[in-house]
């Protein structure tokens, strides 16, 4: 077992990839995806199952791995008991997992959403990057089109670089860096004091500032053969990019990890990532950049 702390490590390369294993009908698909990712990233694979370690489960998992051609020398299996979310988080921390891969439903029912499913629970609290696969495929998902959230945040540059790294390894053709433009209080501030010209100037100035911010960040990336485009969209952070990713049929939405640990209140009054978790538009990569 590695003792390497995750803190301070850059978000990529993905040297160790964890897979949350559940004995569900999608087990083969998730394992297939993990195998392809591990091969692309030259990463060690750790299969983590939170649940009883029965001979039947052990046999099933080994059989599935053999069938899918996952070499036993490049993977480890960890069996743990307990509450899935904290146990998985602890396993990732103990084993220095850089990326945790798991299957996730696009939309949970209301009860499960508010009480917290495993995938959503991990997304809110993980200390490593997370790949939520909405439609895992045993032969691998194509990640042709990536949408990256270009929020003004110190983490964003790391997230963009991680998206480029991921895209280069998995044959991505296009990355759209999207900045959401939303200003609480603007309508109220301009209601009585601004002429039509001032109002439109203020709005276009704010929009230009948002566009300049993402342009500066994009300039720092080295995308290689991937085409990078920039876009500023109006709307509530999280919700607007979810709509955008859905409308442009993105294969993967790449976002920053939350700045603080989300709780029940964040689900009742959703904001940012919580809008995305409400209804995943596609697979989602949550990059934990571990910036201090």
């Amino acid at each position, binding site marked *: 077992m590695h003792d390497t702390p995750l803190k301070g490590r850059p978000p990529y390369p993905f040297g160790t990839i964890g897979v949350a294993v559940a004995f569900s009908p999608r087990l083969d698909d998730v394992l297939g995806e993990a195998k392809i990712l591990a091969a692309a990233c030259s990463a060690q694979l750790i299969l983590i199952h939170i649940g009883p370690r029965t001979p039947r489960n052990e046999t099933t998992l080994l059989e599935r791995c053999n069938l899918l051609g996952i070499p036993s020398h490049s993977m480890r299996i960890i069996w743990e008991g307990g509450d899935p979310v904290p146990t998985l988080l602890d396993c990732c921390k103990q084993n220095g997992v850089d990326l945790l891969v798991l299957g996730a439903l696009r939309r949970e029912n209301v009860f499960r959403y508010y009480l917290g499913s495993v995938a959503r629970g991990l997304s809110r609290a993980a200390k490593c990057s997370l790949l939520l696969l909405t439609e895992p495929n045993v032969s691998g998902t194509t990640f042709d089109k990536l949408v990256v959230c270009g929020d003004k945040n110190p983490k964003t540059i790391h997230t963009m670089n991680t998206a480029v790294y991921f895209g280069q390894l998995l044959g991505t053709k296009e990355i759209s860096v999207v900045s959401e433009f939303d200003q609480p209080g603007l309508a109220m501030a301009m209601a009585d004091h601004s002429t039509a010209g001032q109002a439109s100037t203020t709005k276009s100035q704010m929009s230009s500032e948002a566009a300049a911010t993402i342009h500066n960040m994009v300039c720092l990336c080295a995308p290689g053969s991937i085409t990078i485009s920039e876009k500023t969209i109006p709307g509530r952070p999280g919700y607007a990019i979810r709509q955008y990713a859905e409308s442009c049929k993105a294969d993967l939405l790449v976002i920053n990890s939350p700045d603080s640990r989300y709780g029940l209140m964040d689900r*009742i009054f959703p904001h940012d990532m919580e809008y995305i978790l409400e209804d995943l538009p596609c697979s989602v990569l949550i990059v934990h950049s571990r910036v201090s």
Partner: protein
Amino acid sequence: MSKLTHHDLITLLLAISVMLIVSRIVAEAGKKIGLPMVMGELVVGIGLGPTIFGSIAPAAHEALFPLATNANVSLSLDAITSLSVIMLLFVTGLEVRLPLVLKQGKIAITTGLGGMILPFITGFAVAWLFPGLFASPASGARHTIFALFLGTALSISALPVIARILLDMNMLKNEIGMTVLAAAILNDLVGWIVFSFILSMAGQGGAAFSLNHTIFAIAAFASFMLVIGRFIINQILPWAQTSLSWPGGVLSFSLGLGLLCAAFTEAIHLHAILGAFIAGIAIGDSVHLREQAREIMHQFVTNFFAPLFFVSIGLKVNFLRHFDPTIVAIVLALAFLGKTAGAGLGARAGGMPWRQALTIGSGLNARGAMEIILGTLAFEAGIIQQPVLVALIVMALITSVTSAPMMRYFLRSPTAG
């Protein structure tokens, strides 16, 4: 059925048009020298009211604003100003985005709490210990209600003027600006709920209800609207915006719901403003509410209802006769010290360096139109007398005008850091 006569209608329309046109001219002139619009509107009210116009030309004043002699016109104007204040609270609610408080996290909460607790305690203590200074009863329920009111009045902030100041200083998007906005949202949410409670205690809206009933009714209504109501609104708004006429459909739905909630809270012996405010929060928080619809509602209310309301205050109150320098000085001192120090300490506790913390405290010190609305409602409910209302109005104007220079001072000052 009682009806407005031909003459009543002409008088009413003339009064409204004079209030709107003159207040616009004066407010625009004030804007040129950097004064808030509300100041121009109040000045017009003072000019058109008993303070100036009424004392110079009493006959002409009585003909244009026959509030004392013509019950029909007086009642109609009263209905319009009541509707105005309900609409003002509704659009204030539209900007109360609770997720922003959660997003800003610890610093928003410590700043918001600091900006409420210290002004509330100081205001409450002074009103409780020295009721004679404010001509308030020295014992009984009225004594408690007045003390609670003064504490609440000093702890509230004014989102519209704060948003405007931050926009002018190009600080709306930076960390200080976002913290000020989030803390102001928290201040306003708690402040208006507490104020509704005080109004209910003061017996507004009919029978006196028990304390427990009032607390339960406020909590139940707010929780229902902010959880289940928001969910229902989120289902209806997309349909209203796509299937009904645009923007008519969504405006009718939103304003109608605001008034419906106002009627409901009035009916259950809470004040109508609470219903409008909470409905505004529930609608404004929806991601489905298009920015254009939000802007139209703000424009309509701010440029039609707000001038009528603020001018009407000057029509009712004689500012010169009721200007008491002692009360004004006390209220000003409490307002500046309580808010700037309280919010500043809160921001410091949230991890902000001293200089930025005091900048935040100065930003939150702007009381603007919200304080004037609060004072007017308290005056109409019999909680305060005219000298206290005048002092609150003066305080609201001075804090609004001084907020930006104070912020600039603390941002520049090397000693404050």
